[in-house]
């Protein structure tokens, strides 16, 4: 193991300093209180601001703790915001893959479907937004479990609910699958939630690489998998491309300006 990282120690000191008093502090005050060069303090403050741990007053330029620190540990990305940022990419994924697309985030031991794009064949389909899927039997749920974004509420020795005869019901089988998912970067389920349906999912990452959700394709097993039961490589490629684009959209930097339309 390496030694402590100096900039993280300094960042922690800045946060303690800002938390110490009710007053906002200017850059000069922060730098002199901690014996840092102004440039160093400024760099750290700007980084903390970027991750919303620190806020700067627009008028005075002084700093205070950011709102994100208050709900550290709870999901801080608004699900409607996630849908809005994903819209174009999810559409493109459905258009290219020809399959239905869903986005999910964890909600109390389940996966909340936050966005759904129909399979583009104009068949009758019902919007699934707001539905809750099981973690251990859905491709998105497996991604969220594998990357530590969600955890099962049941005790380790309890059997998991079987939705079909293909559902993984023991912790040992599930843990083995999760290790594989971490290794390969994608999750799959074939008829584990519904007979006649398969799904593949990859993680969506937010700031700092944290997995905040998953994006999935689902459809008939013979379209999702090749004859050996492996997912079609082209679909994995398209999924990864979409997830990367959405992650980029969420990874900081200002959102693109809204476009206006004329009369």
């Amino acid at each position, binding site marked *: 193991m390496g030694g402590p990282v100096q900039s993280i120690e300094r960042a922690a000191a800045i946060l303690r300093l800002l938390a110490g008093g009710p007053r906002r502090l200017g850059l000069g005050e922060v730098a002199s209180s901690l014996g840092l060069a102004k440039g160093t303090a400024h760099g750290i403050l700007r980084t903390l601001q970027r991750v919303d741990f620190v806020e700067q007053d627009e008028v005075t330029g002084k700093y205070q703790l950011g709102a994100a620190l208050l709900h550290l540990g709870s999901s801080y990305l608004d699900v409607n915001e996630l849908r809005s940022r994903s819209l174009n990419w999810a559409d493109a994924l459905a*258009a290219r893959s020809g399959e239905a697309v869903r986005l999910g985030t964890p909600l109390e031991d389940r996966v909340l479907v936050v966005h759904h794009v129909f399979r*583009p064949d104009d068949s009758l389909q019902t*919007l699934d937004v707001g539905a809750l899927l099981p973690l251990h039997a859905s491709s998105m749920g497996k991604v969220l479990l594998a990357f530590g974004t969600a955890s099962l509420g049941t005790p380790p020795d309890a059997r998991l609910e079987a939705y079909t005869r293909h559902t993984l019901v023991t912790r040992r089988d599930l843990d083995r699958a999760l290790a594989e998912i971490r290794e390969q970067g994608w999750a799959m389920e074939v008829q584990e939630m519904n007979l006649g349906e398969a799904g593949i999912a990859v993680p969506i990452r937010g700031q700092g690489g944290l997995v905040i959700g998953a994006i999935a394709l689902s459809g008939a097993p013979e379209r999702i998998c090749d004859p050996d039961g492996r997912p079609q490589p082209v679909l994995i490629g398209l999924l990864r491309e979409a997830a990367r684009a959405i992650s980029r959209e969420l990874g900081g930097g200002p959102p693109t300006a809204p476009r*206006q339309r*004329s*009369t």
Partner: protein
Amino acid sequence: MADRYVMSIDQGTTSTRCILFDQRGRLCSVAQREHRQYFPRPGWVEHDPVEIWRNVRRIVPEAMAHVGADAGSIAAIGIANQRETTVLWDRRTGLPLGRAIVWQDTRTAPLVDALRDRPGDEYFLDRCGLPPSTYFSAPRIRWLFDHVQGLETRARDGEVLFGTMESWLIYNLTGGIHGGLHITDPTNASRTMLVNLRTLTWDPELLDFFGVPRVLLPEIHSSAESYGEARALLPGVRITAALGDQHAALFGQTCFSPGEAKCTYGTGSFLLRNTGTELVRSRNGLITTIAYKIATEPTVYALEGPMAVTGSLVQWFRDQLGLIGTAPEIETLARTVEDNGGCYIVPAFSGLFAPHWRSDARGVVVGLTSYITKGHLARAVLEATAWQTREVVDAMNADCGLSLRRLKVDGGMTSDNLLMQMLADVLDLPVVRPLVAETVSLGAAYAAGLAVEYWPDLEALRANWHRAAQWLPAMDPERREEEYESWRQAVERSFGWVRPSRRPGAP
């Protein structure tokens, strides 16, 4: 490889985009650049036409580079543009005579008020289908003549050219002062207040009325036909379509049959309904406009209901009230409550547009009680967009004598599931969102591709349209009627707030 893509250039209000589409209407590459907004005085909004042309010169190669395309792989170029924004330039130098005056600019308000007074709305509605408004181009040309010394004389002498953004871009793309084409299409021309809607020609009486010399104006071509080859940027590639953005969206949504309608939900929202080759004069507060004109085929008309404040009400809720951090969070906040708690917001920030056209209206929040929370207000904000749409749809149904069967939607606000469900509920119609959200760009590409037979016919385009989402009505009819009645009462309370007797600047 030949003819792999159709290129669309969408010159919008805040940015310009270049998108390449393939034969299945799928988006293959995007490049975008924003341009600066100039606000020299309150109510004035300007763009720099030189900056916009420079942006086009950057994004076109960018979009091509993303997919390794060269000029030989582009079948045609189509242009969609912000409507009514006015550019004047020097015929000799090809340079703009000042900045473009943008559609949002309200400097012509005093002139427009005078016109509505005399000769009155009917005079204009009969000829060009539009009531006088600060949006349209002709009052701007008049304003420029009255405020820029020597301009009117120079225009009469044929030294000046007028155009909306598509004219400016086509002129530059086809060579500028070296033989650049000075043309427009009927959808754009029909928003000037200078075009006779039946003949699609500049109306001598209206030209005379505004004192606009014919020599200033571009030639009106079809919305889709081969205008000429590009000389700049993509030498040899044909430019084959131009459409105003809302008309392009109607085309991109493949609303080709009479009765089909789309609504684009953005800052403002614009519902257009195809009325076929029949020109329908609205008796219910809508605008008669050209849907599109393909080559030598008969002109297709549309009714349009513009709503000034929809997405911008959410922006106001975010920026001025600070009750949410981002626009999509309005849905989260609105879902904290079951209903509006009896509260209604009528966003008549600068009067009401379709179907009321009341410039004396101002925004109201009604039904406030101590029970109302910010969640109820958030609901009322979203419902305002739904009910405004209902009023426009009712006006369209009354004008056409035929009820709309479903509404195709696009634009940024379609990511709001709660709003989309509200729309289905208050309209009592299915609301459908297509797979390609960029309907404006897609429409321009479709028109351009049709003109060069990249796509054989309208049916081939229809086959490219796919449903990405659908919301079905699920509201109790009795409750719908009660709510609508309350909304109508709220709208009435917004009327007449601005009194003509008030001194300007009085509190």
